[in-house]
């Protein structure tokens, strides 16, 4: 396996574990608090985790060394490519839905419940565009959703007595930056940039892991 693919696989698997852990803690907290935002965070991070596992699997298939690929029949190579394409689309869709769910959760909390029906319709219509355009568009949609989440975090941190954790905010900012880099990598088809984007995204999840572990050990101040 190529080293780049191995790194991508490792980073994605670790990010997926953090996302699933965050989802579990949100689910656990929701049993006590019963908040729609926590529910959205739980579902959103679960979808992210599943998506990241799928993407890790894709990087394993697409990162096979040339000698292994050339040893395969045309039919096997074709089915690999179809599988990779399907996995990439599933990953992008899951990511987009995940950030949409989290953004809707915060929107419902901040602005009321009228936003909840319009946003999923946008995701469905997005899924109808062609494959390459879909990748670019979905990254754009994710960037907008992440920017919205970061904005909500800043609002909650600065006003209304809310105490949005700096570590969580940093995590969302890093994931936002990662998606900016990933978008550029899709536009210029640069694998190096893709690796950088994946690494920055991992740092975001690492920041989230620090927060989850700290909240589990320390408790509120």
């Amino acid at each position, binding site marked *: 396996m190529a080293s780049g693919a191995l790194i991508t696989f490792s980073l994605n698997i670790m990010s997926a574990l953090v996302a699933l852990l965050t989802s579990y*803690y*949100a689910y*656990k*907290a929701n*049993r*006590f*608090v019963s*908040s729609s*935002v*926590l529910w959205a*965070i739980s579902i959103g991070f679960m979808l992210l985790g599943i998506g990241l596992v799928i993407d890790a699997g894709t990087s394993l298939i697409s990162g096979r060394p040339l000698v292994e690929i050339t040893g395969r029949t045309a039919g096997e190579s074709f089915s690999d490519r179809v599988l990779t394409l399907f996995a990439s689309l599933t990953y992008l869709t899951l990511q987009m839905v995940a950030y949409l769910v989290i953004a809707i959760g915060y929107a419902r*909390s901040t602005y009321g419940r009228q936003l909840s029906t319009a946003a999923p319709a946008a995701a469905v219509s997005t899924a109808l565009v062609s494959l390459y355009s879909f990748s670019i568009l979905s990254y754009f949609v994710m960037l907008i959703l992440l920017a919205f989440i970061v904005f*909500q*975090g800043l609002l*909650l*941190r600065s006003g209304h*007595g*809310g*105490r*949005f*954790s700096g*570590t*969580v905010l940093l995590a969302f900012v890093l994931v936002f930056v990662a998606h900016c880099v990933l978008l550029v990598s899709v536009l210029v088809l640069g694998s190096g940039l893709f690796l950088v984007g994946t690494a920055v995204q991992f740092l975001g999840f690492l920041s989230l892991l620090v*927060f*989850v572990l*700290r*909240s*589990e050990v*320390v*408790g*509120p101040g």
Partner: protein
Amino acid sequence: MAQGEKQRSVLRINLDILNAVRDEGEAKPTHILYRANLSHERLVKYLDDLTAKGLIEMKQEGENRTYSLTPKGVSFLIEMRHAESFVQGFGLAI
């Protein structure tokens, strides 16, 4: 009813009561009432509810009545502290 009390959730009030009981060890109703900022009528209702759930227990010695946390109440408070920390991290309040 005070403005602050109106905005508190039932969970928040229960937590305030449990924290007061924990801090006192064996808490008298007047101390809990002061710490939880509740009317006597409402405090009795909440204390009965928490006793029924097995989170606190009452001891009566003559005229004196005190409340203390049960083991179930202690573990509930620990779980709640973790949940509260997580919830606050995402900008939410209990």
